[in-house]
Structures are given as structure tokens and as C-alpha cells.
């Protein structure tokens, strides 16, 4: 059974509705899209599918390959046992398979693109023996896959449930325990594969870079957990600069250090490595701010749509207002102890949070573009620019 057949069966097993969509099915013809002002997902899809053609193959499911083809671990089988329970792992698994926003495998794609954009180091002959496909060394491809493995591993580990916080609505305890068990083991399995992949690269600097990216990511996820606001709890008072540090850890570090590592693999010098790092960092930041802004930008949103009180627009809004006024606004939006997100959203939209978040997004986007300027013009570089443009587009 081919990997694709396996994957096409998964959504049904996981109880997802709708067929498996993804970049495999949406390769579109080459069109210039910079002039378009549509902010539809189709545009983002186009950017990504264009980019995938440039790097030679669709990058979807890079991290799932090892999970699904390994008989010993049989993770898919174990996850299936969770169908009907409320464990978050099921949602994570569905999200991994059901590609609705083309945000999956984005890190891997960027690593491949930047590898191609930088090209081989003409000054250094030591890479001449590496094999190259579509302008990318196989070790760089491997690195892209490792990046996705690390990202997915922590995605899975984010879905662990605290057993002493369970309520009766969460279902039986043993289901949650089993779900936790599978989530831990799956995440560990992905990390182990990442470590093995890193060892095979035979480059200790790259291992150090990615290991430190993992350490950053773990800290970032820890902060995310701590600041997850419960319905009735007021969020912590963190300013935008703290938010930026924490978001760098949880979203920027992995991509930034991966891009740098890709340059190291091709033996590029420190300057090139730094530019790659800067692109990865700023692109990731701007992407995160963009996704934080979505609940506030979309014209038609359902009233029940919640948003993260620790997202960029909200943190900025809070900073403008000052702590006391913000707490007052939250209280006003609470009805019988439950937060009325629709009301709070309107309050935030009326303030300066949203516009300054858009500005911040563009700030990071432009820094990313600046970093790209030091790379020679190429298809790959254009694709990287297009990704940034797509992320900065709000109108």
C-alpha cells in the first residue's frame, strides 16, 4: 500500500468529514498573483503550490511518513482507539492529515526554498561530493524533514491533558490517560527520528543548532500553556516586548535556526547564515501575527468564534489601554461568568490593537524581505518573497 493510499484512508479513520485535500491536489498553473488583492485562502494555496514546484516535490506529510510506515510503532492504530473520546490528540491528528490552510509543512518548505536560493557555496569545494536535486542538497532536504519532525512532535506534546483538571464532560479518565500515553510516545518517536536524522547529517554544528531550537521551542510551548487564559481568568500582564520574546521561542526559533543550519550544511559563511536566520525569524513572527489577526480581520465571523487573549492584537490593545481599563473591559464583556467573545472582539476592534498588530506584521515582513536582498535573484528567492507578501496582505 502506498503512502498516499494510507494517508487517504486516515481521515475516515479519524472521523474527519470531507475528503483529503492538500497541495497534492491543488497544483495550479503559473500566474502572477502579486496584483491580486484577494485575501482568500486560494491565494495562499497558490503561493505554496508554486513554491513546491520550485523545490521539486510536494512537501506535505514529511513528518507523517515515519509515523505511518513504521510497523513497530503502529501509532495510527493506537490513535484510532481514541476516536469517540475527547482527547486533544485526535484533533491534532486530524489537523495534521486534513490540510485546510496549507500551513502544514511550511517550515520544511521554507528551509528547502532558502537552501535553493542560497545555492552552493562557490568558494568552498568541500560540498562537491554531495548530491543535489533541483538545486538542493540531499542533506538539506533531510534537514527540512527534521524541522517538520520537531515541529510536529511538539504539536503532539502540546495536546497532553492535565488529569487533575478533568471534568465529567471530558469523559472517562482512562480514555484521557490512554490518550496522554499515545501522545507522549508519538511525540517521543518523532523526536527520536529527528535525532537520528540529525546524527546522519554528520555535522555537529547543525546538531547543536537544532537541539537548541528544540530547547527554545519547549520553553515557548511552556509559555503558551501558562498564558492560556481560562474563561474567567484575566490574562497576565505581559507587554508586547515580552510577547515578542515568547513568540520567538515558540514560533520563530525553530525556523530561524533551521534556515541557518541549511546554510551551514552547504558551508556558507557566517554572514549568509545570519541572513537566513533573520529571514526565518521575521517570516515566522509575521506569519504568527497574521494568524493572530484572523479573528479580527474576517468580515463574516460566527459569534461563537473565540480568540486567544494572548494574541498579538489583544496584547497590543492591552498595552495601549493600560491594565486597569483592560480588566474593566473584560469584566464588561462577561455575562454570568462567561466571556462574550463577540462583544470583546468589537471592543478590541474599536481600539488601536488591530491596526498596530497589522503594522507589526508588516514590520517583520519587511525585515524578512530585507534579509532576502543579500541572496542572488532566483525563482526560489521570489517564492520566499511571495510567501512574505501573502502573509502581509490584509486588504
Amino acid at each position, binding site marked *: 500500500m502506498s503512502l498516499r493510499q494510507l494517508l487517504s484512508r486516515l481521515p475516515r479513520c479519524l472521523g474527519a468529514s470531507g475528503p483529503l485535500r492538500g497541495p497534492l491536489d491543488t497544483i495550479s498553473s503559473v500566474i502572477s498573483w502579486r496584483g491580486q488583492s484577494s485575501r482568500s485562502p486560494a491565494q495562499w494555496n497558490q503561493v505554496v503550490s508554486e513554491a513546491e514546484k520550485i523545490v521539486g516535490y510536494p512537501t506535505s506529510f514529511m513528518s507523517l511518513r515515519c509515523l505511518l510506515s513504521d510497523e*513497530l510503532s503502529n501509532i495510527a492504530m493506537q490513535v484510532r482507539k481514541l476516536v469517540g473520546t475527547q482527547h486533544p490528540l485526535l484533533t491534532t491528528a486530524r489537523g495534521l492529515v486534513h490540510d485546510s490552510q496549507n500551513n502544514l509543512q511550511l517550515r520544511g518548505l521554507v528551509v528547502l526554498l532558502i537552501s535553493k536560493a542560497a545555492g552552493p557555496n562557490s568558494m568552498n569545494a568541500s560540498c562537491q561530493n554531495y548530491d543535489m536535486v533541483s538545486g538542493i542538497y540531499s542533506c538539506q532536504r533531510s534537514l527540512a524533514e527534521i524541522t517538520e519532525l520537531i515541529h510536529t512532535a511538539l504539536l503532539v506534546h502540546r495536546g497532553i491533558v492535565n488529569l487533575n483538571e478533568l471534568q465529567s464532560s471530558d469523559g472517562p479518565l482512562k480514555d484521557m490517560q490512554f490518550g496522554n500515553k499515545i501522545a507522549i510516545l508519538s*511525540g517521543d*518517536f518523532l523526536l527520536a527520528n529527528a535525532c537520528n536524522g540529525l546524527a546522519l547529517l554528520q*555535522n555537529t554544528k547543525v546538531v547543536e543548532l537544532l537541539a537548541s531550537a528544540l530547547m527554545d521551542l519547549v520553553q515557548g510551548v511552556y509559555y503558551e500553556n501558562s498564558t492560556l487564559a481560562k474563561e474567567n481568568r484575566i490574562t497576565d500582564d505581559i507587554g508586547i516586548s515580552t510577547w515578542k520574546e515568547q513568540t520567538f521561542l515558540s514560533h520563530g526559533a525553530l525556523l530561524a535556526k533551521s534556515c541557518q543550519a541549511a546554510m551551514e550544511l552547504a558551508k556558507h559563511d557566517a554572514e549568509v547564515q545570519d541572513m537566513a536566520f533573520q529571514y526565518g525569524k521575521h517570516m515566522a513572527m509575521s506569519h504568527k501575527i497574521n494568524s493572530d489577526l484572523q479573528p479580527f480581520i474576517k468580515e463574516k465571523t460566527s459569534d461563537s468564534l473565540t480568540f486567544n487573549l494572548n494574541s498579538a492584537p489583544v496584547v497590543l490593545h492591552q498595552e495601549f489601554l493600560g491594565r486597569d481599563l483592560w480588566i474593566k473591559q473584560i469584566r464588561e464583556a462577561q455575562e454570568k461568568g462567561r466571556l462574550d467573545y463577540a462583544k470583546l472582539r468589537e471592543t478590541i476592534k474599536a481600539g488601536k490593537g488591530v491596526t498596530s498588530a497589522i503594522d507589526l506584521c508588516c514590520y517583520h515582513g519587511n525585515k524578512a524581505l530585507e534579509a532576502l536582498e543579500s541572496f542572488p535573484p532566483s525563482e526560489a528567492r521570489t517564492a520566499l518573497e511571495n510567501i512574505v507578501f501573502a502573509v502581509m496582505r490584509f486588504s
Partner: protein
Amino acid sequence: MASCWWRWRWRRACSWRPAARSPGPNSAGRAALSAPRAAAAAATVAVARAQMSYCNIMKSLTSAFQNMYGVSRFHHTTPVACCCSKMQSGEKYTDPFKLGWRDLKGLYEDIRKELFISTAELKEMSEYYFDGKGKAFRPIIVVLMARACNIHHNNSRNVQASQRAIALIAEMIHTASLVHDDVIDDASSRRGKHTVNKIWGEKKAVLAGDLILSAASIALARIGNTTVISILTQVIEDLVRGEFLQLGSKENETERFAHYLEKTFKKTASLIANSCKAVSVLGCPDPAVHEIAYQYGKNVGIAFQLIDDILDFTSCSDQMGKPTSADLKLGLATGPVLFACQQFPEMNAMIMRRFSSPGDVDRARQYVLQSDGVQQTTYLAQRYCHEAVREISKLRPSPERDALIQLSEIVLTRDK
């Protein structure tokens, strides 16, 4: 399964259930020649009485041991007393732990340095088990092996910084896996205190484990040796695969034993074997020495886990007056159970349903204690130790080499 390093104390007079043997109360270094002989003899009889299929299992295991000595002899080739004349310094260490700790001063402080991050609570969680109270068995084996290999290679009496780093890394990888295992097993206590998951919750505990692993990987990368990185990343994979092996069960009895040994290797022995191999690679270019180090670590590791599995049945009823049977409660069929099942086939059904029916745990325990499961597992552990000693004896004599020999005996004779 319960990992009992912390419960192991070095005692001059070790007491033990009649089933397994203990050395005499005097010189810790000398192997007790008479006592194990008796146990081995008893075990041989037990083997003879066992059913045919069991004999087949043992035959296949025996063939894994080359050059087996007669079962009545359990000794090492160089008693400590004779070694004095061959030692470079005039010092005489009878305690392998003391000998090993000379190189491990500051071990826990150094580990905590690797975990230096700004997130206070996460740091606290990650440092929780590196409090200096553990016995640090794995680091001790690592540094002793490092010295033994260095001396064997060129009589060097130094331990390289990179070799000492392996000791830290081994302990960190071990601890990271413990933290995750405790969440998986929903354990409440370890090493006499509450587990990380009970204090801080499961979500944060998993992150703490990931953090320790990432710190270990950074330290590993900094050694700057790609071979060593490959050797130790293998351990990380084995640890996870070992846990997965535990999730599944085998129907066939012969398969079950092989499955049990494979899981034991992956979960316990792989780390020790590969850490030993890593320090030998750093200290000596000879592949034969790397293999010796690996085999020593592997055999001691398996023996250690076998004894651990025995203690789960025997220790608490002695000392606490009530059994824990932690492995049974987790649904795990370990060595004593698998052997007992040979004599009491009615245990098969319980094994297959992982002791989930009410009363299963107690019944299984009774069967094990009535059978010779414990004796046979002990015998098996002795054979692994014997093999470890045989391998390590190939190295040039040194205090450290002899300490490693003593350690393998300590593995067998510890009690709770």
C-alpha cells in the same frame, strides 16, 4: 516498570532471599564463590525439571553466550587481592562507587548548568531529579569504563573531558525518559519523593522531559564527535521503541520471552551499552575494545533489569510487609512471571489480558512465589553478569576494570 537505582545501597552485608545468593559479609571485592554455586546448582535442577519448550528457550539463549563456563563456577579471573601488585598507585579501593565518584564530583551541578534557562518553573522541574541524592549508577559505570579503556589503550590515567560529558549525557537521557515514563504509568512517587507529574501536572512534566532531552543533545553536539552522536541517538530511539514494545503483547510463549528480552535491552541495557561504547570510542581507537565495552554494558544492563523485575516481587514483602507488584499492576509480564507460566499454564490467560481482571494481580503473584520463577530469573541474570565479566576481563588489569567486575556482582546481590 519500577526503576530501582535509587533504592540500591552499598552494604557490606547484603541480605537476600534464599532463592538468590549474597556474598559473604567480608571483603566487598571478592566474589563469593560458594554461595552462587549453590544457587546455580539449584537453578540447574530447576531447569532440568522444566518442560521441554522451556529447555528450547534456554538453549537458544545459551547459544548466545559463547565459551560458557560450567554453571558451577562463577568467578572472575582477577581477584582484587592479587591486583594490588599490578596497580600503578598504591591505593586500594574496594568500593566501585567511591572509585567512580572521584571523577564525578560536581556531576549534578554540571548537569544543572546544562539546564540553565530563564523559565524559572521549567528549570525547577527539570532539575528536580538532579538533586545529588541519586546513586548515579550509570555515570559511575561510564567513568569507570572510560578509565579502564584509557588504561588499556596507552596506560593513560586521565579521563577526557568528553568522556566525563558522556556520563552527564547518559544520566540526563535516563532522567528524561524517567520523567516521561512516570506520566505514562501515572506514577506518584520515585526515589522517595513525588513525581514531577504529580506536583506540576502532566502537561508540564512532558515539557520538562523534552527540555532535559534537548539539553542532553546540545551537550552531545558540543563534544564534536559525529560517531559518538550516532551512538547515543540510537539510545533515544531504543528507549521509545522499548516503550512501544511494552504496549503490545505476544501470544506465543517463546516469542514472549524474546519480546521481553528485546524490550529489556531497549529500555535499560541500550543506554548503558552505548554509553560504554561511546567512552571507549573517545578513549581508544581499537574496535575490539569498543565491542568489549558495549558487551559489558549490554550484559550488565540486562542483568540489572532482570534483578529489578525480581525485586518487584520479593523486596517489599520482606521489608515493608506488603507487596507492590508494580509491574503486574501495569499489566506487564516480566521474567519471573514468564518462567512461572511454564509451570502454571493457567497464567496464560491472565498474561494475555494483562492482569486486568480483579484478583489477577494477587493470583499471579502467588503463582510466581510458588513457582521457581524467581530462581530461574536469577540464574539468567547470573549468566548475563558472567558474560559481562568475561568480556571486561579482556581489558588490561586496572583498579577500574576490577571495579567494573565488582559492579556486575553488586548488580546481582542488591536488595531493596
